């Protein structure tokens, strides 16, 4: 594995009496794509702000390629590309003017601004709208431009703060395609989100935070293993199952756990080929009518649920 290009050690930040980040440490290797996952208010944005030098931590340090940022004009800032959670765009300037302005803050030449601006617009599929101001854009297009603006100075490390919040599925897919392209180009990506499936799609490793603390920091595969090799199987019945069925079902061969949710029965199974015939046979014996049966690879949701005690959705 590459040496870490981004290292976070013992970060802490309080706002008055509120502890936004209590103790966060992790590191990201060059070229790695890490998900920073946590529910709203977990301290993700605050952590990212400290990473980018926007706010000073109360304790701890951030090392970029082994060195701490020394001030506002530290050239190491050029290695970072921050995509803020808000749509940080000038609504009245054209897309091209936005790109050129933010690029110029990194002292790019006019030629560089022009060429890289065009390339960034091309990447996010907005080439045709270069002359239009963001106020005429859809939410998804604004999100894409928000991403493009961070790319002009060609940073090695991308700090993405919930870059898909509030966009339609199509734009979300487009943004993911862009990020996959960037990952393929060797960019290091720290992807902040409270959507589990985004981390699963993009990242190889996940850092789970809540209440300003790291709850888990592991490769995705390892977390899945924690969940066990087991698989999930959902049976949809015509009517809700009686409560006393649960214990009986749990005793069937290959079944580990059973949960009922309205007319659904959710099984965690050690071996699908053993469990499914047993379950269907038992249900048929007891007069239950199966309307649908599905199985899925293990989902990380239960891991996060057990780690955070919170739902990872918008709550």
């Amino acid at each position, binding site marked *: 594995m590459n040496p870490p290009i981004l290292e976070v050690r013992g970060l802490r930040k309080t706002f008055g009496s509120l502890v936004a980040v209590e103790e966060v440490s992790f590191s990201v290797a060059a070229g790695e794509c890490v998900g920073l996952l946590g529910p709203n208010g977990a301290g993700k944005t605050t952590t990212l*702000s400290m990473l*980018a*030098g*926007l*706010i*000073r931590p109360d304790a701890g340090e951030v090392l970029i390629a082994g060195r701490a940022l020394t001030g*506002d*004009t*530290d*050239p190491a*800032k*050029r290695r*970072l590309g*921050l995509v*803020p*959670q*808000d*749509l*940080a*765009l*000038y609504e*009245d*300037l054209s897309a091209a*003017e936005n790109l*050129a*302005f*933010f690029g*110029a*803050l*990194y*002292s*790019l*030449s*006019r030629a560089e*601004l022009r060429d890289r601006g065009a390339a960034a617009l091309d990447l996010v599929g907005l080439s045709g709208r270069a002359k239009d*101001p963001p106020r005429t854009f859809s939410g998804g297009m604004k999100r894409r431009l928000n991403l493009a*603006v961070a790319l002009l100075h060609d940073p090695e490390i991308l700090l993405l703060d919930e870059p898909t919040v509030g966009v339609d599925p199509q734009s979300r897919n487009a943004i993911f395609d862009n990020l996959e392209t960037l990952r393929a180009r060797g960019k290091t990506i720290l992807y902040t989100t409270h959507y589990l499936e985004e981390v699963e799609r993009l990242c190889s490793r996940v850092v789970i935070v809540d209440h300003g603390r790291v709850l888990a920091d592991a490769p995705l595969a390892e977390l899945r293993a924690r969940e066990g090799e087991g698989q999930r199987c959902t049976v949809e019945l015509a009517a809700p199952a009686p409560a006393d069925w649960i214990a009986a079902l749990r005793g069937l061969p290959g079944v580990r756990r059973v949960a009922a949710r309205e007319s659904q029965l959710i099984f965690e199974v050690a071996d699908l080929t053993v469990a499914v015939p047993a379950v269907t046979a038992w249900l048929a014996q007891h007069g239950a009518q199966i309307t649908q049966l599905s199985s899925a690879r293990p989902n990380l949701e239960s891991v996060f649920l057990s780690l955070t005690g919170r739902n990872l959705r918008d709550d």
Partner: protein
Amino acid sequence: MHPLLALIGKDLRLHVHNRRALILTLAVPIAIASFFGSLFGGQSGRVKPSGVPVAVVDLDHSAVSAQVLSNLLAEAGLRVSFPTNEAAAQDAVRQGQLAAAVVIPANFGRDAGRGLFGGGAKPDVVLYEDPGRQMESGLVRGLLTQHIISAVARNVFNGASGRQFTREGLARIEEAQGMPAGDRELLRTMLGGVDRWLARVETNGTSAAGAGGPGGGGGGFSLPFNFREEPAVREAVHQFQYNGYAHSFGGMSMQFVLMAAIDWGLAILLERQRGLWRRLRAAPISRGTLLAGRAASSALIGFGTLAVCWGFSMVVFHVRVLGSWPGFVLCNLAVAVFAASLGLFIAAVGRTPEATRGLAIFVILILVMLGGAWIPSFIFPEWLQQASVVIPTRWAMEGFDGMTWRGLGFAAAVKPVLVLLFSSLVCGGLAWRWFRWEAD
């Protein structure tokens, strides 16, 4: 491209794209300044001032009243009308159409002449005044007094009517009971002398009555002095004269440049609120560059606004810089710099844009009002004139007035410019200290 230039260019672009800001900094001050300018005197020497509307009802129809009427008509400051009767005149005053109405009673010429020698009842000249226009009716009263005295005096001491009065006077002296013999003798000698002198003028054929009048140098009696009205500013030597628009354009363009300063301050708060501040702070540029960019773009926009407003006033209302041009330009620069620093100050102390706007508008309106941008500060009560010396905008107006219609030299611009620049330093320094650099 240098980041500072990029920051300035971004602000200028945003300003040009922002129609509301453009209207607020250009169209509105020009419109309001034009209106205020026309209220405060407008362009003297170009458009004839409309004059104080006053009505005269002459119930006398004597040589004296005719003289008073013709003198009043000749007054540039009055617009005289002649209603048919007293009631109509009184009505017009009550309805606000006239500032005052004068009624010259019947037999005024005769009674006033006698009154001068202490004989008979003095006639009553009635003056109806609009209580809301005391300045104007005061002017009417002054002019009326001047012209009545002059007309009566001339009538009494000149020509045939003059001899009539002196003879009546002599007769009354003889008839008067209980007058000490010495007094009687002196008065008899004085009036007798006047009578004999008038008789001599008559026989020599010199028309004293014709050559008399308030300013006349001929024989006869008249007021012992003339008014010569001279403005205290250097307008006489210039082709263009005092112009009320000069003050209003200076005041209004400054007011709206300061108003724009609120928007510049709020723009920073909005950048903060909308996450743009994160991008700005994430870039490898110093705090000094960030604030300098904002200050420079604000000052440029402010200076441009002042230039356009003044340009308009010069082309349309013939406002001229009668004093020093370098002084004038410096004053404008200093006002622009002051406004820019005020914008930074607002950004430093403001929390949310919404909460900041109202308070900032209030403070700036007070600044502008006490600075004399609406009405000249010399109209203020004495204590306020003294107190407002600490207000930078007061000095700005002093500089503008000095360089435009007062026609003062460069030296008169130095103090206003220094006061404004010092105030800018204070505002900018506090902004630097209190600014929240962290993104939130």
